Every structure is written in structure tokens, then in C-alpha cells.
């Protein structure tokens, strides 16, 4: 049985680490982009951002001061049991978020949407957002903490209910226009990881887009060759736009285009777009049934 204290510790540490360490795959992709860019401003946006991440890792600040929305993606196995039941996961997430905020690893950013009041601890209805899914026969839990920055979420979210007659051309046009609009003046903090959901219901579609942007290792293509080809085509197109890091003149507005699909209504072709910013914050904690926690910047 996984104890509440173990969950809290793992969620806090994963969230805290995500705020101060850039995942290795994201860092490697940014270093590659820095080599590619020729415009001095484009290069400088990247070298400065990498230096900033180095300072954060050395305990001198944060990877980005907008720590955004506190998100946890939790996956349990068929034989996982939790002290107090699965509801404990949500309570542990709240405690971990409050602690990370208290210790200045998260900025107090979550406010009531109408009153605009700020409780100062990033807690409130819906936050932290915990998505609990089940997979496999194990008895452990995998937690991915993802403080999702405001820029990428606020300026990098689009949804369009297309129709079968709009075709793949419609998907391409929607995604390309969304990249152009969201990268304008560096709104989503490019180079961005673009998540695209195709199919499902509206909420499933956006959820797929978000997970495609946040939870896939940079450079991994979709296993379905048809989807993988579309990903590559859109990435190649984005690199020709003339938009670079932070919206400058350059090549790397986008590090990856990741698409996920779900079956949908025969009358519909829903498409959702959700961006992740250049720092790609996420950190993974794996908990075993005997309370052993291991952490990784990878998402395997």
C-alpha cells in the first residue's frame, strides 16, 4: 500500500524539481536549436534561456518565474492501493502544491476567475489539477508534475470543430495558423512543443493535445505512420515560417509537433491545439508499493 506521506513527498519533490530543472530531452533540443540559428537575436534568446536554467539548477532561482498552473498526471496500476483510498492522491497533491508555493518554488498564481482574489497557495476548486489514469498490472504509481506556464496555456490554446469535408488540409491549415498566431512576438515562449488532438469529444480532444505537448519525449514520433507523417510535415512547415526563438527571426519556433488521435463521431473532425513553452517543465516520480521513490526528468 502506498502511504499518504510517500505520495506527498513524491509530488512535492517532483513539482519542486520541475520548477528548477529543465528536462534533459528539452535541454538537448534547445542546444541543437541554438546551433542551428544564425540570427544573433535568435541565438541569444536561447543561450540566455539555457544560462537561466543553469542558475536555477544551481539553486539560484527558477527555470521560469511564471510557474503557471500546477498539474499532476498520475498513473496507477491494477493492483495499486493507497492509504485512505485514491482520494488521498488529490489531498496529497494539494498539500504538495501548498508546500512548494510556501517555499517559493511555485509563484502564487492561481486566483478566483471572477473575484480575482488570490489565496496565496495555488489551491482552489480544480487546482491543483490531478488526472488519474490506470494502466498495466502493477502496484506502484507514476506521477508527472508539470507546472504549466501561463504564456503557453493562455496564448497557445485553440479548438476548432472541423467537419469530414474539411479534410486533412483543414487540420494542417488550423495547426499552421495556430502556430503563427501563438508564436507572434513570442507569446507562447517558443521554441514550443505543439500538442495536437484529433478526434474524440471537445474535452477529450483538448486533453489529448495537452498530453501530447507535455508528456511526450521530444523527438519521439507517433507509432502510427500516418500520424507520424503528419507530425513531420507540420514540423517541417513550421520551420519555414521564418519565426525563431521568442518570436525572433529564425527557424525554431517549434521543437516538435506531437499529435494524438481518438475515434470520433462520423460527422465530426474535432482538432485541438495546445502548446508547451521552451522550458518544457515536467518531472517524474515513480513510487513502488514498498514506498521507494525514484525521480527522473524523462517521461518513459
Amino acid at each position, binding site marked *: 500500500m502506498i502511504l499518504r506521506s510517500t505520495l506527498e513527498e513524491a509530488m512535492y519533490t517532483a513539482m519542486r524539481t520541475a520548477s528548477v530543472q529543465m528536462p534533459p530531452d528539452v535541454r538537448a533540443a534547445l542546444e541543437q536549436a541554438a546551433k542551428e540559428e544564425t540570427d544573433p537575436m535568435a541565438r541569444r534568446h536561447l543561450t540566455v534561456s539555457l544560462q537561466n536554467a543553469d542558475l*536555477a539548477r544551481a539553486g539560484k532561482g527558477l527555470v521560469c518565474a511564471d510557474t503557471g498552473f500546477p498539474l499532476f498526471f498520475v498513473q496507477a496500476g491494477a493492483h495499486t492501493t493507497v492509504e485512505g483510498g485514491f482520494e488521498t492522491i488529490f489531498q496529497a497533491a494539494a498539500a504538495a502544491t501548498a508546500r512548494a508555493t510556501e517555499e517559493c518554488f511555485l509563484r502564487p498564481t492561481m486566483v478566483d476567475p471572477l473575484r480575482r482574489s488570490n489565496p496565496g497557495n495555488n489551491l482552489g476548486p480544480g487546482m491543483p489539477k490531478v488526472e488519474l489514469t490506470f494502466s498495466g498490472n502493477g502496484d506502484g504509481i507514476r506521477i508527472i508534475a508539470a507546472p504549466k506556464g501561463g504564456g503557453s496555456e493562455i496564448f497557445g490554446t485553440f479548438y476548432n470543430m472541423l467537419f469530414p469535408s474539411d479534410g486533412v488540409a483543414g487540420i494542417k491549415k488550423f495547426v499552421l495558423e495556430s502556430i503563427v498566431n501563438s508564436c507572434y512576438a513570442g507569446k507562447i515562449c517558443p521554441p514550443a512543443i505543439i500538442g495536437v488532438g484529433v478526434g474524440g469529444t471537445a474535452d477529450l480532444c483538448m486533453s489529448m493535445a495537452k498530453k501530447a505537448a507535455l508528456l511526450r519525449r521530444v523527438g519521439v514520433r507517433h507509432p502510427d505512420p500516418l500520424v507520424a507523417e503528419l507530425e513531420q510535415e507540420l514540423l517541417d512547415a513550421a520551420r519555414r515560417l521564418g519565426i525563431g526563438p521568442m518570436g525572433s527571426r529564425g527557424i525554431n519556433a517549434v521543437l516538435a509537433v506531437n499529435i494524438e488521435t481518438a475515434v470520433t463521431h462520423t460527422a465530426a473532425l474535432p482538432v485541438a491545439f495546445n502548446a508547451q513553452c521552451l522550458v518544457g517543465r515536467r518531472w517524474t516520480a515513480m513510487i513502488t508499493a514498498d514506498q521507494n521513490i525514484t525521480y527522473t526528468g524523462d517521461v518513459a
Partner: protein
Amino acid sequence: MKNITLPMSKDTARALQLGDMVTVSGLMFTGRSRFHIRAIEENIFPPLDYQAINCFFHVGPVMRDTPDGWEVVSCEPTSSIRFERYGADVVRRFQLRTLIGKTTMGARTAQALQEVGGVYLSKIGLSGNALRDQITKVRQVFFLEELGKTEATWVYEVDHFGPFFVAIDAHGNNYFEQLAADVSRALPGIERDLGIPADYAFTNVNPDSSANM
């Protein structure tokens, strides 16, 4: 690299060109959405000498309360474009010659900056940790109880703060608008190569607004 002493003079502002990289030294105040809305809609703003403290830094810093006073943990400029509704009014009201933020602002704010002789400076990469070290003193904070640490107005004393680049000059030119025009010119060719017809239109299932006019 040029270091500019704050408050920036009209002459200094008007001599800056798009893309110039600069640092600034002197006094600045911070604010985000709540500052803009309250200043214009409710006439509530910090009682500062805006002639002396004339640089508006768009940011929600991470601040730590310590026994020795407030400490900046990290401060990353925030997206200025979302303040565009109030940007021009705020620039005119406080006669601001320096705005510092992320992204850009729109045509109305650019017009106001041209009138007062001011510039908009945009951030270079993520540099919130280096910027923290260039803040030499946290002078004051306003509206902390009402607005919280993120939306409160902080007054900072800074030394060689930046660099930032001139994204809107004092003559109404915008770096990003020029860049966007180039992107618009590249787009049709890219769409064609993706197999999107030049006259492509998404299926419209709503009342045709042009037919109702």
C-alpha cells in the same frame, strides 16, 4: 552595450532604434493586469512620483519575505500584449517613457509612446534569475494585501538591468509587426506545399454575417 539611466529622457528614447539592445539603471515600478484595470477604471494607483519613477516593468515576480526584508527569487517579464486595452491610457496618464515586458504591444500603445517620447523594451530569452541579481534594492510595495505578491506593485532599484531589445521605438515602429509581415508573405507558399488550396475555406455552419448586413 548601451546603459540608460532612468528616468529615460525623450531625447534618449527618440534616438533608440528597433532591435537595439540596452540595459537600464535606476528606479522602476511593476504591475500587471490589475494595475492597468484599477488605474484606468477605478483611478487607484500607487502614490509615486511618476516623473522620477517613470519605467513600468510588466512582471509578477516571485518574492520571498525574509527577516531582512523582501527578497526577489526570480522575476520574468510577463506578456505585455494582454494589457493593450489599457496600454495607451496608462502611458499617457503617467507619461511613461520606458515600458519593459515580454512580447509587444499594439498600435494604440505604440501611438501613445510616440506622443510621450517613449519606447517598449522586450525581454531576451528567459533571464529572470540574472534580472534578480541586477535588482539592487526592493524599495517599496503597494497593494500587497489586496492583490497578493504577484499582482502587487513593487518599486525596484536596478543596476545594468537587462539586456532588453527595443521592440517598439519612439516613432511608432514595431519589430514584431515587421517580422509578422514577412511571415505573412511566406505563408501561401508553405500552405501550397502542404496541399492546402489557395482558396481553402473551413466549412461554415453558422449564419453568414455578411448576408445579414
